[in-house]
């Protein structure tokens, strides 16, 4: 999503963008959410599916999008990412797919 606050600093400069680091970040965000649901002992890997394995619903993914943008800056545009996906594909999304997307975005921004 494109935000209108043009003066916000981009946090991406200091965020490490290799897959293990991003997986750790996203796992942390997910654990915070799952804690609220009382589910705190689920292992999160690249293969974990948001809906089937974590029982998250679509609104949780919207919340996750906000956390990702706060952490990595506006180049991680979840709304744009999912705009190209069918609803079924979004429901079947794995943590790994999202990790790879974030890594791509942060690298692309670094090369600019």
């Amino acid at each position, binding site marked *: 999503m*494109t935000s*209108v606050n043009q003066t916000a600093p981009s946090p991406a400069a200091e965020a490490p963008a290799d897959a293990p680091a991003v997986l750790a970040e996203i796992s942390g965000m997910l654990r915070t959410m799952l804690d609220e649901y009382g589910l705190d002992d689920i292992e999160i890997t690249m293969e974990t599916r948001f809906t089937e394995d974590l029982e998250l619903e679509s609104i949780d993914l919207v919340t996750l999008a*906000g956390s990702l943008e706060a952490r990595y800056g506006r180049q991680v545009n979840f709304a744009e990412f999912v705009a190209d996906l069918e609803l079924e594909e979004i429901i079947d999304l794995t943590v790994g797919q999202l990790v790879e997307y974030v890594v791509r975005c942060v690298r692309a921004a670094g090369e600019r």
Partner: protein
Amino acid sequence: MAMIDTARETHDGTGSGTGDDTDQATDHDGPDTGADGVRLHVQRLSPPDGRPPTATAVLIHGLLTDSLASWYFTVAPDLAAAGLEVVMYDQRGHGRSERPGSGYRLDTFVTDLERLLDRLDITGPVHLVGNCFGGTVAFAYAMRHPERVAGIAVIEAKPATESWLTEISGILRRVATELVVHEAESLAWVSAHRGAHTARLAKSAARLVRTTTIAEDVPASGVVSEEQVRAVRCPVLAVYGADSELAGQERWLESVLPGTRTVVLPGQGHSVLAEAPTRIRELLLSWIHEDETATGAPAVGAAALEADAL
């Protein structure tokens, strides 16, 4: 969404979510308040590259198993990409908004929308886009504030007439029995036949019905007469699935509001937004653009945009 002062007070006072929320809420999302100070979760998408929006679209989701995610994952990004300022919010009791124990009559949902737009400082006329119950909210809002509405697009929805009340009351009675009294069996059935995600949504809906008075409140809503519906003057687009229980509704709407553009999509049922998002997006965009061309409407979102940039 930039947090405005009135909202920040509410946010701090309620201490919702985690510590992380406070940081992330400063930019593009976060709670705002509706009627009775209930916290509402808002998400906004703006046109890319800081372009000023050509109009503002407010997307209103349906009852029970719905949330703003239904827009976020279907038409919202494309509407923003096409140049619109897009405002989505979770209605009370739904998604990430607060779930008060009572206060679920239609009028209260309409007041939520009123307060929300006030708080966001969106004063110019907006395009309201409502799915199912969200469409009923859109109609009711346009009757309450004709001057604040540029147009209404509804998907699988009708105004709050006597027949609407009868139908939605029946649905809520059925849901209350199926999802609450027989929750475990119902959820097992949904999970087996409709998949994990629908089961997850049904679980949230069951919680909403079990922990609030929504199943009693919505049927206690006030209704509008045909005369009141006739008073709606803004452009109306109404989309229905040909296989939905609401099919046929378009003929009534055309007779009451002769200027209404109605579209019936063959092979589609009630969940046409989720099933045919591309088609819905095309219909919404051409309808909004036509309206802009017809009225030469100014960029009504520009004021809100500037307010946010502060």
